[in-house]
């Protein structure tokens, strides 16, 4: 922990990141409630997924520090994530939940 010589974010930056996360969460919750009046026509689902992906990436990159670590760790992490997404997408498609058009 104490040996890698790279820039740690400062306390201030960490708090800023946390505020960003809180704001994103608030937007998500707002989307949940106001999608009808905004007539988003089905966009609220993808938007929610985009927002949560942003939160995911921010926590992994800054709080888990992956942005500042050696690439090997990102590769391991992404490999697990990509494999899970791929395999389970196929399972859901095979079971008729995820409909693949065309």
């Amino acid at each position, binding site marked *: 922990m104490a040996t890698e010589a790279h820039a740690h974010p400062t306390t201030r930056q960490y708090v800023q990141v946390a505020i960003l996360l809180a704001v994103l969460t608030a937007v998500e919750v707002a989307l949940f409630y106001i999608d009808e009046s905004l007539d988003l026509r089905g966009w609220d689902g993808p938007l929610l997924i985009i927002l949560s992906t942003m939160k995911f990436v921010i926590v992994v990159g800054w709080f888990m520090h992956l942005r500042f670590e050696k690439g090997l760790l990102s590769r391991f992490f992404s490999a*697990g994530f990509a*494999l899970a997404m791929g395999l389970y997408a196929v399972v859901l498609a*095979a079971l008729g939940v995820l409909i693949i058009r065309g």
Partner: protein
Amino acid sequence: MTATSARPTTSIYVRPHPKTGIWSWITTVDHKRIGILYGYSAFVFFIFGGIEALLLRIQLSAPNNEFLTAAEYNALFTTHGLTMVFLFVMPVTAGFMNYLLPLMIGARDVAFPRMNALSYWIWLAGAIFTYSVIFFADVTPPIGVEGFAGSLDPSDQTFLGGLPDGGWFLYQPNAGPYFSPGTAIDFGALGLQILGIASLISAVNFLTTIFNMRAKGMRLLRMPVFVWMTMVVAFLLLFSLPIIAVALFMVTFDRSFGATFFQAVSGGDPILWQHLFWLFGHPEVYILILPSMGIVSEVLPVFSKKPLFGYAAVVFAGAGIAFLGFGVWAHHMFASGITPVAQAAFGLSTMTIAIPTGIKIFNWVFTMWGGRIRFTTPMLFAIGFVSMFVIGGLSGVTHSIVPSDWQQTDTYYIVAHFHYVLFGGAIFGIFAGLYYWFPKLTGRVMSEKLGKLHFWVQFIGFNLTFAPMHWLGLQGMVRRTWKYAPENNFGPWNLAVSVGAFIIAFSILIFMFNWMYSKRKGRPSGLDPWDARTIEWSIPNPTPEYNFAIPPVIHSLDEFWHMKYTEDEEGRAVRRPDADDVIARLEHDGNNPKSPIHLPNPSYFPFIMAVGLPLIAFGIIYHLSAAGKALIVVGATITIGALLGWGMEPLEEPHEAHHDDHADHAGAEDEDASHHEEVD
């Protein structure tokens, strides 16, 4: 970035340091001893699995036989599969990987020695827990089944009827609470869960070791193929075990807590089980075969006196097989009602696996081509691997053609396929490795006469047993069925198959005798009995406790070979004039380290922690009773307590810090030798 040096100065825990006796085995964190523990334990279960197979074959040796009841037959083929896969092939290959991995990369141990011990003890706990079903299962017969061929009277069922009997794949809802009431399946499901934890821990350990603990100069593409296969297997375990863990939790919740994940009557989907099981199950079969492929990739070059043909291709093909292996699972479900699109997709992906597999086969053959072949016992088994695996692979490719597979499914043709790849492949490879690396464990060589006898008897017995299953299956003989009618005329070949099975059993007895005999009376091997290529052979036999007296520096692939040989103008290997001096020097220096060597201290906690898990599992099975609830609490307390103790254990004993191995080494060697006798 300094923190205050707040190490615990007093500790209620003192690290144990026994050198001899059973405590030295229970507290060991030495990867070599852990490998030996895996190997011997796995072999015991090999015998159990073999006996199960022989009982099955006695039942099938004649039509309409009544040697076993249907319930007993179902129980035996289930436990035969579970035993051979999880309690033999996986732990014995784990034994190889444990023993050899640090030696092949020039390290003194794995990254996490205590976790390594934990893997073994958890595995053993899971194995014993699973087999304890013999004593604990209640024999409630299946309910609501019309025309059930066995006896519904509990007093008619021997203890065999109380074993898990839903097949090793535990298909739902057959192995669910309605059709398999009672506790036998739970022992299988929870036992597998425990075993899975052991392998997952090993996977994390091996990956960290391979990435982080290579000797200087040991770049990834200079590692022996066996190490690459260990890495690939670890990735397969890492990513497939969590899937089966969830599936097993779901089945346990269905059976014990009333959930309805797979029970169709409540809206659950039995096909979901098949997907989750085979998402794990298919990578699992590559986990079973890749270590043997690694062994063969080490053995063939040594006994052909040629480098492995196309090293990089063999490595990348291994990785390719693993990667593609994640994409083919539903080929086990072609007859389960998946859509035509899914069938086509998975049929195609299954065919593509033949490509990297074929690359490896060609490279092995080209390795031998033009080499100066020595037909030693390990070489015979390695060549046996290549040829038998090709046969098994060919039948496998025929399964990838969906309409053909519909005819083959649930027949003996499938049984023939997987036994050719798993026995003719994985197990022949394992024997090649056992004969090849025996000197590293014992400092002696196994008897060549007995070895060749073992090989030929096993080869004949194996082919007599499994070749006829191809045509029996194509003629329509159904698998997982306790008896067959005489009208189909399956009798004669089934009798031949059963005879073959007993011939295999006899060959194993030859092997066991050879092992025991050679440990005591085998010819001393010296440092380099095979004129080998890789650095595990550059240290004395039996392997010193500290492995390398001086960490090696690596300059190329097959580093040890290049210490002994150079090349002439035509690129042929020429033995260096000083090669014998090099070997003598390596032997001397390897036995006499110049300065003290720290080794990780032994520990009680892995053993203790492992004990808690089967207690929790028993508690889950009997959770409706007070005793069951108490067991869960006790088991959890032991496991968590041991984990805390482990965390607070000092890393090294201060007074051990400058333990002088030099004077003790001669004594340690004798102790190691006497340990092998004790384990017998």
